[in-house]
């Protein structure tokens, strides 16, 4: 059981990493674009805190938070985003194509669900005892392959936890313009037991994920977790078409870092901030100093 301080530390590390990333993007050292998980950090931390070493994570385009919560090295991630040989994937994969240990992400919507299902089938067949956690967004529910895979995940009882990060938007399209009917019922139609949670609070997500991961592991069977959450940043960079008022009120009510920060005493809180700021700054500078890349 992680204490409040450690949970905050993990949340804040992701936030700080991506804040520095967005700030430094302006200086031209990062090629291409990037998707940050601002507002969704508690999903990554709350779920991935329960993994065993052999477990597998499959993530999507919005994967920095998942990668860091998995235990990925901030310096290697900075270097990857800078396109350097010292990056996680030598600068080839970039922001949305990471692979380290049992962590895999990819940038084509829907296909990652198939990857996750296949990996869970492999772990089940080899009786490794490992499970797979797959993160997906609400917009990805539009892809047909998702349903082909939900069917097989249930049919073959694959040990996978499907985490749907329902931030109610896909790039610029609100889910009201893209999703008909009930989202949990889509999973339940395949008889995948599904839990819906509307929260950005790590203390809600963390214990619930523990129970679900235990069930997946013990029963070698799938579960789905739909977390209603909020994207507090742009889809990628500076491409948010939502009204400023909407964003402001989301920052007020749905910021997982602010929610958890309140639980820490002032000195404790400041200590974490100092430590993480220094750690991320050092990771950034070391990545920048390494050979190669755009800048």
């Amino acid at each position, binding site marked *: 059981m992680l204490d409040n301080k450690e949970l905050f530390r993990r949340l804040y590390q992701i936030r700080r990493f991506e804040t520095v990333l967005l700030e430094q993007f302006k200086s031209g050292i990062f090629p291409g674009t990037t998707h940050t998980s601002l507002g969704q950090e508690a999903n990554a931390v709350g779920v991935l805190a329960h993994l065993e070493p052999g477990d597998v994570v499959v993530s999507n385009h919005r994967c920095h938070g998942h990668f860091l919560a998995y235990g990925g090295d901030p310096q290697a991630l900075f270097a990857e985003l800078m396109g350097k040989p010292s990056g996680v994937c030598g600068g*080839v994969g970039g922001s949305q194509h990471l*692979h380290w240990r049992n962590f895999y992400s990819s940038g084509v919507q829907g296909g990652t669900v198939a990857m996750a299902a*296949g990996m869970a089938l492999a772990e089940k067949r080899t009786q490794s005892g490992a499970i797979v956690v797959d993160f997906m967004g609400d917009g990805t529910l539009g892809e047909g392959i998702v349903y082909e*895979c939900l069917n097989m995940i249930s049919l073959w009882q694959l040990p996978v936890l499907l985490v749907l990060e329902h931030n109610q938007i896909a790039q610029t399209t609100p889910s009201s313009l893209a999703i008909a009917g009930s989202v949990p019922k889509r999973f339940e139609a395949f008889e995948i037991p599904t839990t819906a949670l509307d929260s950005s609070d790590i203390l809600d997500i963390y214990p619930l994920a523990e129970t679900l991961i235990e069930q997946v592991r013990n029963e070698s069977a799938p579960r789905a977790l739909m977390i209603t959450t909020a994207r507090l940043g742009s889809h990628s960079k500076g491409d948010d078409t939502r009204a400023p008022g909407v964003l402001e009120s989301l920052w007020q009510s749905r910021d997982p870092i602010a929610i958890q920060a309140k639980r820490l005493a002032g000195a404790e809180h400041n200590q974490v901030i100092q430590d993480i700021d220094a750690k991320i700054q050092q990771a950034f500078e070391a990545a920048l100093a390494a050979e190669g890349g755009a800048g």
Partner: protein
Amino acid sequence: MNGPAIRTVLDSLNHGLYQSLADDKRAVLLGEDLLDPYGGAFKVSRGLSSAFPDQVLTTPISEAGVTGIAGGMALRGLRPVVEIMFGDFITLISDQVINHIAKFNDMYHGAATAPVVIRTPMGGRRGYGPTHSQSLEKFFLGVPGLTVLAPFNLFGNSPLGSPGQLLKDVILKAEVPVLFVENKLQYLLPLLSKANLDEYEVNTVWDDAGVPAPSYTLRLKSAPQATLTLAAYGYMAHLALGAMRKLAYEMEIFCELLVPTQLAPFELKEVFDSVRCTGRLLTVEEGTFSLGWGAEVVARTAEELGTNLKQAGRLAAREGVIPVAPDLELASLPGDEDIIARVREMVFHHG
């Protein structure tokens, strides 16, 4: 397996699958209607689910999902083999192959491999009509990271390079994803043994651009210097072999036949060597004409040989749907008479 004798391409492929499953528990077959007594739509998988019930997984009609799942299985150390019931349906797996499976190794900077084998029957002449008769492999040639193979019905006596052995080798040893292109009429062809090939000189070179795979050069024994190089693969190579024989015995036109089994990545040294001597190249493929395999072979040969390539031609399917009516279907696909006519035209009319 001391089972029934291996006489045809289908027997050979079935045997290759059997041996793969027997030799390595990591090998898993996935596909539609694979279970016995049916054993797959073209019976290539017959008997396998009875012999290896744990390694044969019959699937829903979900080509994209199953192929993507195979990619995930391969990333985690298994050796999945996907059967796509008709080659026409590889369109459904294109995102899985092009954007996922073929990319993993490079985009993860060499830290992951996804050795999925996808096998599927292409080809017409069975009256199955517009959506069940095509040869669509050209859309998958030149996909970085993907190896495309098409077996040839050679060498019944020695298993080396036979369709089944080639299939087994890639299932058990390949470190890259492979699209294994079969052909419906090729299934029934006898495996040509040394005895069958007595009148030919056969040269085999192993090309390992993607995986080790044989490339064959065939010419009639003690024939004069060939004046044209035929290049073809799969079932078309079988037709070209017949055409080459007839051209020699009935018309005294002598050709050399080049049969690669590895279509992509392209490795055409044997073609270049042959055309250097003959000066003429005719490619034959069952897919449609534009932007096909032949176009790439001719382009690369022209780049390599310059003016030593004096004449080039391509035979392919007519650009349209493949009709059901037998006469219309035959007219839409390249046949042995077309090969003979085109060779004559090239040799006689264009000097």
